């Protein structure tokens, strides 16, 4: 956000009604959208205008028949979104999902032979799941987490999996070289992370990144308190990093907290 003078602020505010109705031109829209993240007052005003507009746009008529069926069939045809998160021991309001992962040609998978790590990770997972089970009342959610836990356990034990530890970096706050998370990535692109070592955040979220060649791709948000997480990453991903962000971002300005190589 750029600091602006009172008169510039007033000029922007005078546009908020038109902005909320999509009735400004592109340059005005860009100015406002640059301003809004840092100005709760203007954000609240836009929210209010949009609620009023929504009341005007309200219609008693139902959507045409058959339209839902088309949407539902579209869902069936879609591959599962790239990152599926279950944040063990947390309320459901902490759940987020990820933006799409860029499609990339797959490359031959390389194995790692760190089996001791996978056994340790499996034990840890069992402990985590036990803690989770005692905290949850919702049976469906338990099933989700158990299924995730079982899938993760299988992945860490699989000889096909690429397994890595994500360690703190020298410029982070923590002591460098500490293992805060472990990852198993299967040849079909399903990845599992045990992220119990990442300290809980009071605000913002952790975000997972994949390194593919000279590109860094977002693999999705991990939430504030990630425990067991599954994600998707294809064969071109040779490294993983986690950053802390205020919200899910396309590009990070922050240093990685932890990283690990899959090569």
């Amino acid at each position: 956000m750029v600091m602006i003078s009172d008169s510039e602020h007033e000029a922007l505010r005078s546009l908020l009604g038109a902005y909320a109705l999509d009735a400004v031109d592109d340059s005005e829209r860009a100015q406002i959208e640059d301003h809004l993240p840092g100005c709760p007052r203007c954000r609240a005003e836009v929210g209010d205008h949009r609620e009023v507009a929504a009341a005007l746009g309200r219609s008693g008529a139902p959507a045409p028949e058959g339209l839902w069926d088309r949407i539902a069939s579209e869902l069936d045809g879609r591959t599962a979104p790239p990152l599926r998160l279950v944040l063990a021991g947390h309320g459901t309001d902490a759940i987020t999902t990820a933006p799409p992962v860029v499609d990339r040609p797959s490359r031959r998978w390389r194995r790692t032979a760190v089996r001791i790590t996978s056994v340790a990770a499996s034990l840890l997972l069992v402990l985590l799941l036990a803690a989770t089970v005692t905290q949850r009342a919702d049976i469906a959610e338990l099933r989700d987490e158990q299924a995730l836990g079982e899938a993760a356990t299988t992945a860490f034990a699989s000889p096909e999996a690429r397994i890595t530890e994500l360690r703190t970096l020298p410029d982070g706050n923590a002591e460098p070289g500490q293992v805060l998370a472990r990852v198993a990535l299967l040849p079909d692109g399903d990845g599992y992370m045990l992220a119990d070592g990442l300290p809980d955040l009071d605000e913002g979220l952790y975000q997972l990144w994949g390194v593919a060649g000279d590109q860094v791709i977002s693999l999705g948000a991990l939430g504030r308190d990630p425990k067991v997480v599954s994600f998707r990453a294809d064969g071109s991903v040779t490294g993983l990093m986690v950053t802390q962000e205020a919200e899910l971002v396309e590009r990070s300005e922050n240093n990685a907290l932890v990283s690990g190589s899959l090569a």
Partner: protein
Amino acid sequence: MGPDSLQDLTDAGLVVAISRYREEALAEAYRRHAGAVYGLARRLLSDETLAEEIVQEVFLRLWDTPEKFDPGRGSLRSFLLAQCHGRAVDLLRAETARRRREEKDQRRTAEAGYDLELEVWDLAVAEHVKDALVGLPEGERRAIELAYFGGHTYREVAAMLDQPEGTVKSRIRAGLKRLRTELVGSGVGGPAVDGGGGSDGHDL
């Protein structure tokens, strides 16, 4: 979580369930809001096929990126309608659509039959919203109608009404504020009032 309990969820709760890929949660959100989204798109585009495409796009986007909805910033209804409106306006402003529309608007103006009472009547909105809209000063009402339902920028509205741009800009904002006051005064809980308790504390 069974389908029955989904009906009791707030909109914010539904979106959490959607983020867990529960298709029935998206179906419930659709049941609550698709009519309004479709109605707005059809009104803006005067084209049923395009309107259906927009409904489809809006709900698939909710499925793909549910985190874009922030319950702290407003109701799910207003979020979906804002997405719908933005998309419809993009289409409208595409060059060919623009030309067609301008011709149509010129015809309307020429016929002097551009009766806003009828336009308002046509909205099929709740009675109190109609009352509030009809109760606005005419300049404010026209500016809001042309911007929101016509998909015009405030500059275009100013040209159409032959008024200064600054005046139109102020009237849109003042009119929206006045409408809000009216709607709150009439004790209405906001656009998501029929949405299964989904207004999440953001009542009008």
